[in-house]
């Protein structure tokens, strides 16, 4: 690592980024949107969130050479990388950002031109398309020194990262988390603990830093605190009216995904939690007329967030929970600084997508009860097989067991070529009628 680049990174972090954020804030103030009458007052924290994530992406331009850089999948045990001071970049988060800015098809097409099939995950196609085209809303992405993937969320990320190895020519570490078809066994825990231990020499070599167990424990503690606080943030949505919508939560998810294990994530969620508690105490709802409460299943449809948010709010319907946002809180309690490896093995292997569908069914039943859910919207996402295969059965069972009406939207997370406006509208109209009963 170069001293000059390290100093430049620090300078940008302490002075460059705040200055840029200040300019950006001023520009935003000038171009503020007219408020939608169906919504309550916007969350004050949203500005802070944008600053944090903006700064994170801004610093990516100065990370190379100052810090070791790793590209990481959203479910990978990043705490271990933090102990080696990696700058971590999350291609899935970048994919969501591109999706929200409606850049999905354009970047996917750049990958498709190079032979990547349109049936493949669109996060992967966006990422590869960014590599081939050099286009991104956040500027040039930092070249990785290491790729770090875990198949606890899908096998796809490993196929995708194998492709990245081919193009970037850097090492790949895979955290292999056996699928929990039944209860997790000690054999599986030992296998995962061994893997984490085996990663240390590789990480030491790539980062040129020694592993410090005490520092690692502190990071695990920070990740636990941030994840638990994120869980508390979501719990505030049990209130009637809910102080935020799940569309807000999809955005506020970014720090727990991308900055987990860093103080900034925990600090941010404490501020957000305070604001939400204040709103609950004051009876301030995210939407003005919350008559019906809904649950969302699967990753967001990033390019339709605003439209769907407005449409549901118009009908007095608020999304108060989602299996997706819950995923970063669900297993947090397993994290334990006293037994960091074993606890990480459990926390990362027991996530929603690495468990049987019955596990998801029980979770959804619990969420329906705790959040007093009146209806369920299921996003059948072409990009995400582990999330989508089985949804038809879950829909049927939730109706049979709890009488919860639901609708399936066939779409994609970022590639809006797979979205049919007409079909979705027709289905949602029928759903609105069913929920209104």
């Amino acid at each position, binding site marked *: 690592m170069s001293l000059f680049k390290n100093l430049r990174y620090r300078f940008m972090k302490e002075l460059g980024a705040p200055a840029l954020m200040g300019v950006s804030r001023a520009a935003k103030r000038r171009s503020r949107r007219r408020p939608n009458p169906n919504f309550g007052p916007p969350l004050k924290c949203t500005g802070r969130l944008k600053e944090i994530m903006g700064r994170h992406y801004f610093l990516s331009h100065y990370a190379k050479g100052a810090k070791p850089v790793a590209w990481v999948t959203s479910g990978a045990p990043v705490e271990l990388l933090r102990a080696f001071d990696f700058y971590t970049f999350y291609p899935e988060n970048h994919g969501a950002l591109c999706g929200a800015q409606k850049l999905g098809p354009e970047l996917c097409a750049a990958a498709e031109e190079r032979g990547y*099939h349109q049936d493949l995950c669109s996060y992967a196609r966006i990422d590869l398309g960014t590599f081939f085209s050099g286009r991104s809303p956040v500027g040039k992405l930092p070249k990785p020194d290491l790729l770090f993937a875990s198949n606890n969320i899908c096998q796809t990320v490993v196929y995708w990262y194998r492709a990245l*190895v081919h193009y970037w020519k850097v090492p790949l570490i895979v955290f292999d988390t*056996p699928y929990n*078809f039944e209860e997790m066994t000690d054999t599986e825990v*030992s296998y995962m603990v061994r893997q984490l231990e085996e990663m240390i020499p590789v990480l030491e070599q790539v980062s040129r830093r020694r592993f410090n167990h005490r520092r690692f424990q502190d990071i695990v503690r920070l990740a636990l605190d941030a994840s638990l606080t994120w869980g508390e943030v979501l719990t505030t949505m049990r209130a009637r009216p809910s102080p935020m919508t799940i569309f807000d939560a999809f955005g506020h998810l970014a720090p727990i995904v991308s900055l987990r294990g860093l103080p900034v994530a925990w600090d941010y969620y404490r501020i957000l939690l305070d604001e939400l508690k204040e709103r609950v105490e004051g009876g301030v709802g995210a939407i003005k007329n919350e008559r019906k409460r809904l649950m969302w299943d699967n990753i967001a449809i990033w390019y339709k967030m605003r439209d769907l948010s407005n449409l549901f709010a118009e009908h007095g319907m608020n999304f108060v929970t989602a299996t997706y946002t819950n995923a970063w809180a669900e297993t947090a309690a397993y994290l334990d600084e006293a037994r960091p490896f074993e606890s990480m093995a459990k926390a990362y292997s027991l996530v929603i997508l690495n468990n*049987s569908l*019955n596990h998801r069914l029980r979770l959804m039943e619990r969420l329906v009860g705790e959040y007093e859910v009146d209806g369920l919207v299921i996003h059948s996402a072409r990009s995400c*097989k*582990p999330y989508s*295969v089985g949804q038809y059965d879950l829909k049927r069972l939730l109706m049979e067991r709890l009488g919860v009406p639901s609708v399936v939207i066939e779409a994609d997370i970022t590639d809006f070529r797979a979205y049919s406006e007409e079909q979705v509208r027709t289905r949602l109209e029928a759903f609105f009628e069913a929920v209104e009963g």
Partner: protein
Amino acid sequence: MLQDSPLPRKAYIWQQRQTYGRRLFGVFPAQYPREILWAMNVLPVEIWDPPLEVSCVGAHLQPYICSVVRLGLELILQGECDDLDGLLFPHTCDSIQNLASIVHDYVGLKKPSYFFYHPKAPYRDSSREYYLEQLRGLVSRLERQLGPLDPSELKLRVNQGQKVATVLEELYALHARGELCASNTEFYKVLRHGEYLHPDDFLPLLEGFMARSRGLASSGPAVILSGVLPNPPEILTLLDRLGVRVADDDLLSCSRRLLAPSSSAEDPFEALVERYFAMPPCTTKDSSVSERLDYLLQKVERSGARGVVFYLVKFCEPELFDVPQLTEEFRKRGLAALVIDSEVNQGLSGQLVTRAEAFVEMIS
């Protein structure tokens, strides 16, 4: 013993149950320790591409799920697995993983369902230990249904599995050198009998085929077939018609899992572990692209193939992800590559036939 052409699949498996008291297990793709099932007097009957009209599966699976998974579930939903004694789901991909969950819990099939997880590459010391534990764990779960495993029977079946692999290796070598006088269609028809024949029958079938088919192959250009399985089988008849020899393959259902090298380990579990980790690289085991490329290039060199046909099942993510890098590397080396993706059992469209014909013209 079967010498030439075995009984049709259905008749054969019922004969196995009646004659030898064998339990029948439906097994989904792809990698699993067959020797353990044989040793426990179970006949694994693999479910790759049942020839069915789809009528029920749409209530459970989206149209963008691959046809191997959709047809497998359709087979179960149409009651064709009702008489089986169990089902085994190896961890092959995200779709099969969730399919296992659907079948186990949501379709009302009262059969024992087993799940078999194999460690993913890049392999480390922990991978070997874990795989060994997985094998032992599978045995102990099966024993609850089937009674104790006889260690000497396992040793026998492991040896038999090695013998099958050795004969297949020889067959593939003859085929690659153009010393097997058999059409593409005949070759893969014989190979695919291994998806349900007991090794006591499969081995003599292979040996008989090899003895009868030694001889010079047609002199047309050679290609390598890569993908999941040789279906739609029309590709084989088309290549036969065009005088092209499939000199070797990199198919998940064929060479990638059938050509595991022999092991000298005394302990049968150790032998199974050694063989698993020595298997050819495979997308479903997360082998690296460079490893796959080297392996394919070896095949090209050995067989003198002039091109590679990627014959893919639509929506198969593990395969589709590697294709752009592999084709790019082949083209750099002056090798032709043809990419076809199709639903299984759907035949070849006129457009695909034209593309295949153009490809053959290019390499001829």
